[in-house]
């Protein structure tokens, strides 16, 4: 018995030493991840990690997001890479959920040991990614996490290259309030998903319009997981509002338009926060571009003819790689590509892929992208983005406001359904 006790103690002493050694090695590995620029060989590619919504609720946006990142990587590699090193993307499916994103970024950072990280699609997932990246000292530049809540997390490593969600509908509200009093709509209906990207947009627009004298006759929210939007569309129709503001993504924007057409409901203006800017994913199901005529959609700063950094080459490269036309370019692709542009400029300026230095550079400098100039506030918001207002006119989605960027005057009031 005494002998076995001694053996027992010896075993545990040895085990304890082994455990301590393993813990020390793990700590060194983590520090290695954080340092990351010093020991990677100069000839090896720079590994950039991101999670992509290949499945789940955001899968329709995941594909264009992936296309944006891949196009950027191709472009930068053709130009000689980043700091003379080729860029390699490590893209992991996140299933459109924050839990999936958390797992993805933990894998990217702790298993795949990526050098840099960029963001996934959507606000909730961008926050989840930023938290994981923050724990390991990584910067996270992202293109679609623009909700108010994203910037209230107290994270200093998140950088959103796009317009803040809250301001998306400001141009529309300004346009409506600029109309002569006799033409101005008297009533407005607001209907939105309970989503951190959409809700604040409508709240801000409603505040501006109410202050400008446009009475709210309906203000409804519905769960994100809804698939049957008919009752909500019914309520909007029943309100008889002159103005309809919809906080939607593609499927619900399609459902509303179809319901309004079926019910012969013709408000003076309709704007959807998202959906009408998704090309044939919107116009196809609703019955063609003729049906889309007159529908407004906000734009966070990009369209085909805009004179911004790299825009002409970007469109050529997109069509060469993916085919189609510029009308097929999704805003998600533009956002992802813009993320790549900011990353390129920041890394080039500091001549390093050290994340601590990158974070400092991103906080202090300004950058140029497809979406226009970018300068980050302390909370990661882009302070220089401008909200454009787009409208479907004669089969094309064109900018109509502010006037200095407009290709045509806004069509108001909206024509009746064809």
């Amino acid at each position: 018995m005494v002998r076995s006790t001694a053996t027992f103690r010896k075993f545990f002493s040895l085990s304890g030493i082994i455990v301590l050694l393993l813990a020390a090695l793990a700590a060194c590995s983590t520090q290695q991840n954080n340092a990351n620029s010093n020991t990677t060989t100069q000839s090896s590619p720079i590994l950039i990690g991101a999670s992509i919504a290949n499945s789940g609720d955001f899968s329709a946006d995941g594909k264009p997001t992936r296309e944006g990142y891949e196009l950027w990587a191709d472009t930068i590699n053709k130009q000689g890479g980043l700091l003379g090193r080729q860029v390699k993307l490590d893209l992991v499916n996140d299933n459109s959920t924050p839990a999936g994103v958390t797992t993805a970024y933990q894998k990217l950072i702790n298993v795949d040991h990526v050098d840099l990280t960029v963001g996934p699609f959507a606000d909730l997932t961008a926050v989840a990614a930023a938290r994981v990246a923050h724990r390991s000292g990584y910067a996270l530049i992202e293109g679609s996490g623009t909700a108010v809540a994203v910037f209230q997390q107290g994270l200093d490593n998140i950088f959103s290259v796009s317009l803040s969600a809250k301001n998306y509908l400001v141009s529309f509200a300004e346009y409506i309030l600029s109309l002569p009093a006799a033409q101005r709509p008297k009533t407005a209906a607001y209907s939105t998903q309970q989503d951190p990207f959409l809700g604040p947009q409508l709240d801000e627009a409603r505040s501006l319009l109410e202050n400008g004298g446009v009475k709210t006759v309906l203000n409804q929210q519905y769960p994100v997981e809804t698939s049957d939007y008919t009752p909500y569309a019914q309520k909007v129709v029943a309100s008889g509002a002159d103005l309809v503001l919809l906080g939607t993504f593609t499927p619900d924007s399609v459902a509303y338009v179809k319901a309004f057409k079926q019910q012969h409901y013709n408000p003076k203006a309709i704007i959807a926060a998202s959906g009408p800017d998704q090309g044939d994913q919107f116009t196809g199901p609703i019955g063609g571009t003729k049906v889309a005529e007159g529908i407004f959609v906000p734009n966070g700063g990009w369209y085909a003819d805009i004179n911004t950094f790299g825009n002409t080459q970007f469109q050529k490269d997109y069509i060469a790689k993916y085919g189609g036309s510029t009308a097929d370019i999704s805003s998600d692709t533009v956002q992802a590509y813009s993320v790549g542009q900011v990353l390129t400029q920041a890394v080039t300026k500091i001549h390093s892929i050290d994340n601590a230095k990158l974070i400092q550079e991103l906080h202090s400098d300004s950058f140029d992208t497809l979406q226009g100039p970018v300068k980050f506030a302390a909370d990661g918001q882009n302070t220089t983005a401008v909200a454009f207002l787009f409208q479907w006119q004669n089969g094309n989605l064109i900018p109509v406001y502010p006037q200095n960027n407009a290709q045509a005057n806004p069509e108001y009031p909206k024509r009746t359904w064809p």
Partner: protein
Amino acid sequence: MTLIIEAVVLGILTGSVYALMASGLTLVFGVLDIINIAQGILVIVGAYLSYTLEKYFHIDIILGLLVTIPALFLLGIGIEWAFMRRIKRDRVMISILVTFAVALVIEGLLNFIFTPNYVQLTAPYIDAALPVFGFYLPYIYLFGFLLSVVVLTLLYFLVYRTKFGFGLRASMQDRTAAALIGIDVERVQTVTFGIGVALAAAGGMVFGATNPFNAATSYDLISRLLVIIVLGGMGSLRGALFASLAMLVISDIIDVVWSPVWANVIFFALLIVLLLFRPQGFFGRLEGRKQ
């Protein structure tokens, strides 16, 4: 008042379509003791088949059912033979895992073939509407309702007026006893699973004509269908119909009268209360199956 009438009418019309989809699910559970989590994605497969026929072969979506229903019937038979038949014990629990895996595989294939872009079925009559009671009733909802009535009536005759239906009901009551009296239980199960999936084709066509969809849309569908069969009583066709109508009408009325946010809350609260007093659902049997 018009809003409430509209909500009731549309609730009944859309509820009938959900009844179609849910009847396949409850039928499969009743005969095979299998909870087919893949039913939602199979509805989407039906919708995509209708979409393919309409977009590439210009076949009307209703006429296309002559192709999609048999196609999904064969798919259902294939799935039953490949996966369900192999489950010999703990059928209820293991079937959840197996059918979930099947659903994930099908979802991946659909995303690969069609991409995650949203699509919707189109036809000249989809946007047309009939003016009634002060609002417009879309024709596609009426067609969907009529389709559900026809299909569910045919299903009723199959289950209650044919020799196959006799075997099906016997298998639902007691599989061993049914085998002992000469019923080919395995064949009944295979055909039943095929029928359950074929019903998804019909439901998928109407769903795809009234909603934009992609593969991910199946998640919300299957959650609704499971609630319907629990509410109606698992294995009860009558229950699936009743529960579908009740769920859609109650939700739609609360949506328009009160708030969309509370519709699901109220509905599930009622479901909990019902299950506390009647755990077998509206038309389920209190005692368990004999095996």
